[in-house]
């Protein structure tokens, strides 16, 4: 088996999907967009009901409309390629195999909101993609898909640059990302003001996920109505799921929103799964009894991470791994998150050693709910999720440890 991950940019594996992985030619969306008015593009996006694919699910058309309406000399569009959520790797696949979708989407965004510069914030872990992507941008400049008067459109100048992150999960949060782009510590800002009017260098900035921009390219070419045909009423289109863990075929899958957890498990060949962690470490743990729930913003929302655990996995070990992750990655700026995560991890270790009281565990659950309310950004607001959901859904297994049963280690 090949161990070294070789990057051949743009080379596609045999992938099938209704939207993102459907037919697309480089530059198609830019050409179409430049023949349309900015308002028409926004109307198409509105029709598509596209929501941000990073996980928060903010309507893209609204974000772009607000950024377009903001008055400023300079505006920016930022592609958030800092996917640090454990179990997520769809952006790696998109950037490696479908860079045209992402970059074309950025150019369309630049045109729509009136930005002159697009910045890709690439996570430091993907450094091996930096050079190939820069070469790709150079090709685009040669073909006038970037640069001055793009494709002959008078007055539309737009370029893209790539900035490398340096291994901080919290920089996936948009204001932390902007802080680090400005040369500061990547600590989230208070919101409001939102980046749409006070973003990078104080200018209006739209921060979009890699997958959102890829979807935009298809929507511009094929229309918002076409896109909205897929998925459910509240969650239109399709989603890329990064599947890992105990299954036969891990990888990236494109499925329409509304797909049931059990259907997904069948597709990826997951037998005897007892739990699925959806939405990464900061997401929710779904036990077997809830496998008929649907993957959609209205039921189980997710940025795409699906981690599967089979009957033999120790869920307390899983929880400990997640909490260690959050203790590592909390930026330390606000107290609930900085101290709360440490306390939750200590609680897990107490259970591991069998030195806990239920009174204390219940206090910790309360602390978790306090963190959800009081933390400054999404990290601390969501890091108690696995603690609360795993202890609740697997309490029989976890609190019966050491009784010699199958999971009683």
């Amino acid at each position: 088996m090949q161990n070294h991950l070789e990057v051949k940019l743009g080379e596609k594996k045999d992938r099938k999907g209704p939207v993102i992985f459907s037919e697309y030619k480089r530059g198609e969306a830019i050409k179409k967009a430049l023949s349309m008015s900015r308002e028409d593009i926004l109307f198409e996006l509105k029709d598509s009901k596209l929501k941000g694919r990073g996980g928060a699910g903010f309507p893209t058309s609204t974000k772009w409309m607000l950024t377009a309406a903001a008055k400023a000399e300079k505006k920016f569009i930022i592609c958030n390629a800092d996917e640090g959520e454990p179990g997520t790797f769809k952006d790696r696949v998109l950037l490696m195999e479908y860079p045209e979708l992402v970059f074309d989407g950025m150019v369309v965004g630049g045109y729509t909101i009136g930005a002159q510069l697009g910045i890709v914030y690439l996570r430091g872990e993907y450094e091996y993609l930096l050079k190939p992507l820069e070469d790709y941008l150079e090709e685009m400049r040669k073909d006038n898909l970037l640069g001055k008067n793009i494709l002959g459109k008078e007055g539309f100048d737009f370029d893209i640059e790539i900035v490398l992150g340096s291994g901080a999960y919290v920089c996936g949060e948009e204001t932390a990302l902007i802080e680090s782009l400005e040369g500061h510590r990547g600590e989230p800002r208070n919101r409001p003001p939102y980046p749409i009017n006070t973003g990078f260098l104080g200018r209006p900035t739209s921060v979009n996920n890699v997958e959102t921009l890829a979807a935009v390219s298809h929507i511009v070419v094929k229309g918002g109505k076409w896109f909205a045909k897929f998925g459910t009423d509240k969650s239109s289109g399709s989603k890329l799921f990064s599947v890992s863990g105990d299954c036969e075929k891990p990888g990236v899958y494109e499925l329409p929103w509304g797909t049931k957890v059990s259907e997904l498990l069948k597709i990826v060949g997951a037998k005897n799964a007892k739990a699925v962690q959806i939405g990464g470490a900061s997401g929710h743990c779904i036990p077997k009894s809830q496998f008929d729930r649907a993957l959609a913003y209205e039921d189980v929302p997710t940025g795409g991470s699906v981690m599967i655990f089979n009957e033999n996995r120790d869920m307390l070990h899983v929880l400990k791994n997640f909490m260690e992750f959050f203790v590592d990655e909390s930026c330390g700026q606000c107290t609930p998150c900085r101290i709360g995560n440490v306390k939750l991890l200590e609680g897990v270790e107490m259970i591991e050693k069998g030195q806990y009281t239920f009174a204390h565990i219940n206090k910790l659950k309360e602390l978790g709910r306090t963190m959800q309310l009081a933390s400054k950004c999404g990290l601390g607001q969501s890091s108690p999720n696995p603690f609360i959901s795993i202890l609740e859904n697997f309490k029989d297994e976890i609190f019966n440890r050491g009784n010699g049963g199958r999971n009683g280690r």
Partner: protein
Amino acid sequence: MLVVEKNALSEEIESYIEKYGNDRSALLMILHEIQKKHRHISEFAQQEVARLLNIHPVEVYSVISFFAFLNSNPKGRNLVRICQTISCDMKGKKQVVQAIERELGIKIGETTKDNKFTVEYANCLGLCDMGPAMAINDQVYVNLTPEKAVELLSKVK
């Protein structure tokens, strides 16, 4: 540090300023370049960056101390990062780490005596479908076994 070394480093940093500009927003990429070449960002380098960007050196240090991939203390010539997050963990990260620790005679987080390797844990490398995964400098390796991981390290110069 010798004067000639200092001068060379100053020149190097000036060339980065030329490439990325002298606005503070260039800081991350400049630090990244220095880190890549020298495997750490020395106190002198921090002062030079601060001088050229017209900010206080402690501002530069505060950014370095924030990011996991930037450091002010020297590390080994080759940096090995092993993904410790759950998907790689379930595929046998522990066995890979133990094999590397035995083979190099160090514990994770340490540097070998000959300064050839520093071995660390990393949080999710985004290779969850091909775990266990590790990065040696800027290249990544996937589907590791303990034997394979050690073999890959033996090929590093």
